[in-house]
């Protein structure tokens, strides 16, 4: 049956009907094997495509001799498997020969080991033993699977399982190879691609892999671009997928929304999430990301609505707990927020976001040590979590250790080279350490990569002002004002007034009175700068009066040359002294 799919795989996008057929067949294959997540993914995609007419439905799979032999045992075992009685399922499958049964047999053994491991952790024999709990089945599975692998007897599903076993045993290199092989044998199984996504750590590694050219590869590429923070590439891929006919897919919408979230394009992301909620109102996945966005925008009613809604759907989900945590955090009830993040972690200790968010909550509660621990945990789960590194930096900044936090900010910057927040933070630290040159570089870089908070230029200008680099400072203020006014909405006018005030004085000093008076007039628009603006205007008019006299003086002096009788200008008193 896998052969049948292999023949399909080298199709291009054009034929949506073919894709739909493939999806339908792979759904049934995965369903038989209990691979629920892949089934879900494929079904979501299939749902987004137009339904097939009756006669075009793919025929149910060919049944081999072995399958028939194992039919009863398989049915029995599958029922036990569905009831999570893995050992029992494995026991009844032990004598089966068909590939399907073999996969379920191995998969049950694997899952049984995992389940036992999770149970074990609760009652371990000592503090040090907690890390020693292992899935005991892994080693045996590996030995058996590697033997079959060498003999070339593994099909796509078993290859996937072999890869998972290898990954759990920390044999990452081998695991990548096996997953690549699995994608070649059975490209339609999304699980293998997803595992591969988790194992590929950088773009070079991605380029070095030889992957089958199949339509599903585009989904994979888009996904991995998001993972590797290469958002523009990902968005482009998703856009082309939508254009190819997957416009109704909730999966793609959610992925795009997450991508926008990652590049902090909040409005776009919010719009997409709202659309998603309309199409799929009972969805819980990705809702934590949605709540993060609502949190950033301080949209209390929306967040509260979301939280209540999710609690009604399922309150024991990690996402729900995160949403509630965000909700409490927005209401400044940080203890409760921390409690909910803890609950999320209890549900899934590998949940990265919750560790980081908990760190933020502890920061709010001024419990720096707990915050550090939470962030460290987050880093342990994923070394590439820039928010945790950034959080650690912030913690040490609060503890007034600017040099110490440099390291953390630098780490965060390394992971997100184009994020202005890290650069601004770095700049601030350098400024505190009176390393002005570095600080200026950071601020300028922050502006160049697209400053989110529009603070970098202002800080740069202030720094230059301190260093009495007046021209540069004026330049920075000018760009700052342009930036602020070009983005339309008024952010904080206080800072604009500072810029205007400085510029007014600057022009005044450089005798550019027209510009100076313009700035002074604009100053008067702001409460805190009004008085100064007026004072400057007065000064300007005064000086203008004076300059008119000197210009008269010039005139006089010129005329003096012509008429030597009146030699001394009226202001020049010195020559009257005897």
């Amino acid at each position, binding site marked *: 049956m896998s052969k049948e799919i292999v023949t399909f795989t080298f199709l291009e996008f054009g034929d949506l009907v073919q894709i739909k057929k493939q999806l339908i067949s792979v759904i049934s294959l995965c369903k038989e094997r209990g691979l629920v997540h892949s089934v879900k993914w494929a079904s979501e995609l299939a749902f987004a495509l137009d339904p097939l007419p009756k006669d075009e439905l793919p025929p149910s799979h060919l049944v081999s001799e072995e399958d028939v032999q194992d039919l009863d045992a398989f049915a029995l075992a599958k029922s036990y498997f569905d009831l999570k009685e893995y050992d029992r399922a494995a026991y009844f499958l032990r004598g089966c020969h068909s590939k399907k049964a073999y996969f379920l047999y191995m998969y049950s053994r694997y899952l049984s080991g995992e389940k036992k491991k999770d149970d074990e952790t609760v*009652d371990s024999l000592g503090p040090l033993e907690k890390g020693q709990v292992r899935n005991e089945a892994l080693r045996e599975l590996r030995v058996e699977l590697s033997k079959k692998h060498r003999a070339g007897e593994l099909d796509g599903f078993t290859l996937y399982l072999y890869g998972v076993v290898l990954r759990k045993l920390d044999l990452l290199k081998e695991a990548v190879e096996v997953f690549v092989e699995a994608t070649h044998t059975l490209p339609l199984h999304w699980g293998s691609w997803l595992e591969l996504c988790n194992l590929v750590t950088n773009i070079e590694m991605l380029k070095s892999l030889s992957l089958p050219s199949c339509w599903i590869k585009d989904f994979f590429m888009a996904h991995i671009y998001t993972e590797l923070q290469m958002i523009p590439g990902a968005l482009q891929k998703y856009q082309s997928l939508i254009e190819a006919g997957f416009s109704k897919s909730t999966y793609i919408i959610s992925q795009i929304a997450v991508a926008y979230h990652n590049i902090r394009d909040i409005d776009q992301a919010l719009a997409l999430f709202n659309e998603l909620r309309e199409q799929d109102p009972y969805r819980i996945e990705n809702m934590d990301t949605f709540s993060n966005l609502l949190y950033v925008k301080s949209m209390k009613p929306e967040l509260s609505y979301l939280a209540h809604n999710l609690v009604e759907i399922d309150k024991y989900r990690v996402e729900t707990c995160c949403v509630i945590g965000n909700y409490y955090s927005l209401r400044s009830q940080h203890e409760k927020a*921390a409690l909910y993040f*803890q609950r999320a972690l209890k549900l899934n200790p590998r949940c990265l976001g919750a560790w980081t968010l908990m760190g933020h909550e502890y920061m709010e509660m001024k419990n720096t040590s707990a915050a*550090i*621990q939470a962030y*460290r945990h987050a880093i342990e789960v994923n070394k590439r979590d820039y928010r945790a590194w950034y959080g650690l930096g912030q913690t040490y900044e609060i503890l007034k250790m600017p040099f110490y936090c440099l*390291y953390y900010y630098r780490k965060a910057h390394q992971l997100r080279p184009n994020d202005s927040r890290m650069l601004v933070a770095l700049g601030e630290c350098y400024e505190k350490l009176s390393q002005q040159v570095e600080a200026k570089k950071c601020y300028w870089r922050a502006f160049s990569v697209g400053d989110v908070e529009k603070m970098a230029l202002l800080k740069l200008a202030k720094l230059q002002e301190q260093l009495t680099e007046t021209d540069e400072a004026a330049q920075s203020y000018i760009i700052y004002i342009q930036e602020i006014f070009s983005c339309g909405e008024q952010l904080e006018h206080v800072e604009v007034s500072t810029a205007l005030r400085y510029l007014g004085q600057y022009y005044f000093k450089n005798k550019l009175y027209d510009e100076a008076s313009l700035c002074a007039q604009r100053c008067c628009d702001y409460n805190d700068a009004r008085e100064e603006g007026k004072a400057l205007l007065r000064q300007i008019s005064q000086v203008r009066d004076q300059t008119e006299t000197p210009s008269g003086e010039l005139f006089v002096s010129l005329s003096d040359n012509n008429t030597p009788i009146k030699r001394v200008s009226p202001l020049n008193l010195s020559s009257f002294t005897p």
Partner: protein
Amino acid sequence: MASVHESLYFNPMMTNGVVHANVFGIKDWVTPYKISVLSLLYEMTTSKIALQEKRRLNKLILPLQQGPDLQLGQFLKTVEDCCPQTAFAVKIRLNEMADGELKDMEFFFTTLPNPTFDSEAYKTSVVGLFIRHMLLAYNKLSFSQVYKLYKSLQHYYHMGVPTFVADDSDMDLTSTEVTIGDKMERELDSPLTFCVRNEDPVSRGPLSQKQAEYFLAKQAYLLKNDDNKALRPAKLQEELNNMLKFNPDFAEAHYLNYLNSMRVQDIYISTHSLLHYFDRLILSGSEGKSNGDEGYGRSLRYAALNLASLHCRFGHYQLADLALQEAIRIAQESNDHVCLQHCLSWLYTLEQMKGSDSSVLTEDSVKMAAHFCLPYLASLGIQSLVQQGAVQGKSAHELMDALKDTDILHWKHSLSELIEISLAQTISIWRMYGKSTMAQQQAQLLLNMSSLEPVNFGVTQNNTEAFAVALCHLAELHAEQGLYGGTTEIFKHLKEQFPPHTQHAKLWMLCDLKIQFEKHMNDGKYHLAQPLVPAIRAQNKTEGLYRKAQVLKSLSRTTEAYRILQKLQVHCEKTRCTETIIRVLLSTAELHWESSDFSTGLPLLLQALTLSRKHHLQALASRTLLHLAFTQLMLGVPEQALSVLHEALEPILAHGGIMDKGRALMLAARCQMALVATRPNGREQAAVAIHTLDEAASYFSTLNCKERLRDVRYLQARLHSSLGQTAQRNRCAMLFHLLDRELQTPRAPTDMRL
């Protein structure tokens, strides 16, 4: 990475974001090893044992109870050494449990002697407490935990007692259907696993808390005292990674990781580990302690300070400075004077490393440290002051007094590390003053001194910088006396003790290069000396330049040499490196001689003489006198030359190197020769000169310095000829001829060099 994720299960006892290592508030957990100890105790209370053996067993109990978990084999062996009969009984008992059923273990725990007032295991005695602890811990275990304990006991027993079951049980599962290919693989694998196993019980998988602590303590101790005996860096890293994989909360492992990466000069990992360690430490510091807040802030300060020292180690002085400022600021804010003192001592070290004068800072530091009763920092400061004073030419007795005073302090507080440094400093000072005997004697004193610190793990502390310095001086002293065999021995030892990747290896590397260079120069093999120059320069720029000038001078590339020497002089005057200035002056004077311009060199030599006298540098002063005498000889005042020479001759013969001795004697002989014509007792003078030359020849021949030997023979031949001693003259002439043929280089005019 993946399994780290897996291991991060949520701890139910996490409160306020801080995970308590002690989940149920029990300090002791029942482990298979503890069961073995319990069964030993049981046997001891129940069965009759001879008094002698009982006594030995009693002595064993405490270490067994409080030490780290042992392998069963080790455990049984230690017991067997005391009482074979009991060991056998213990083994039988364990066997009963391991090969029996779960109920056998449960039965064992019920039969354990209940410590009461009358039994041997008195309720509050060490043994009684232990038994009660264990019973309590056992009774608290849930059913599945008990079952797990039983399983691990079985495993433990079969690991310790080799039976028919193959040693590596994990391989069993595969061996049921082994194909040929697998068999080969197994054969390839098994020796590997075996050596790992035999090498160290530690390297297998997870460790218990105590074992891990013991491992870390041992490795840290070894790293500090003799890192050759510690595990190899790569191996240690592997172990630590393993440990951290199983317990990411084990902060000390991060610190050891930091130390380990420092060994291999890996700045990235060491910074990372250091920060990680302090992140963890901050947590444990704030956990429950009475002075919670205090401990927490404290580790922050020391974190910054440690970061400063890390950057200092890697030579990033600016970064170190910033980190130090931060540490100082936080310490000031929290009024931590002790930490401030540490910062201050780092501050002056940093200033010194940057090459600026820091004596004021150092003095302050010493005063404050004395005020806060920190003897270590105080005497460290004094030592630093002494070092600066020595370079600046403070009088010798002041320095020696200061060192003596600190020594009293060291012995009082048994600061063995500082005693070593102080001795090493004395050696260096004596060497600088040119008193080789004293230096040698101090070096021997240091090397033969037994350390004050208790000897742990069979390692005495002898890889500190002080030892390296002493050994280097010793090597140089040997080389000066032409004892190259001894020098080689010393370097062999240094290479073993301080392998090239270690921190202090640079000391001996430079020293080795210098000695080789000198040797080649003495032998006249300039082409061999030349390639050493870049190597020396890599270690020490000034020294490298100086050596380059020397080579160029010997190759008669005078202009280039002169330019370098000028540059060097300017540089050294800026850095106030007196010794080099004097040597540069001498070399410049020698350059002038080459162009027969003797009078120009005189002011330089006089300047050198004043400098060396001012700084009490006797060896250099004598050498300068030698140069002066030579100049005078060349200027045609041999009598003056001889009288100047006599001033220098005595210290040179007493303390100088063999080369200087030879040169001085040869010069003396030449002065005498010059006087032969003028003096009435010319013949006697000539005979004396011949004798002096003989002595000089013996020195040169120990050094195997053929060129100078040739000069000596030539002079001797002439003297003999003037005395009419034809036979001797012919012999000398023949020796000269032989040497001349061997050397093949045309003989430089003798008059032109010292």
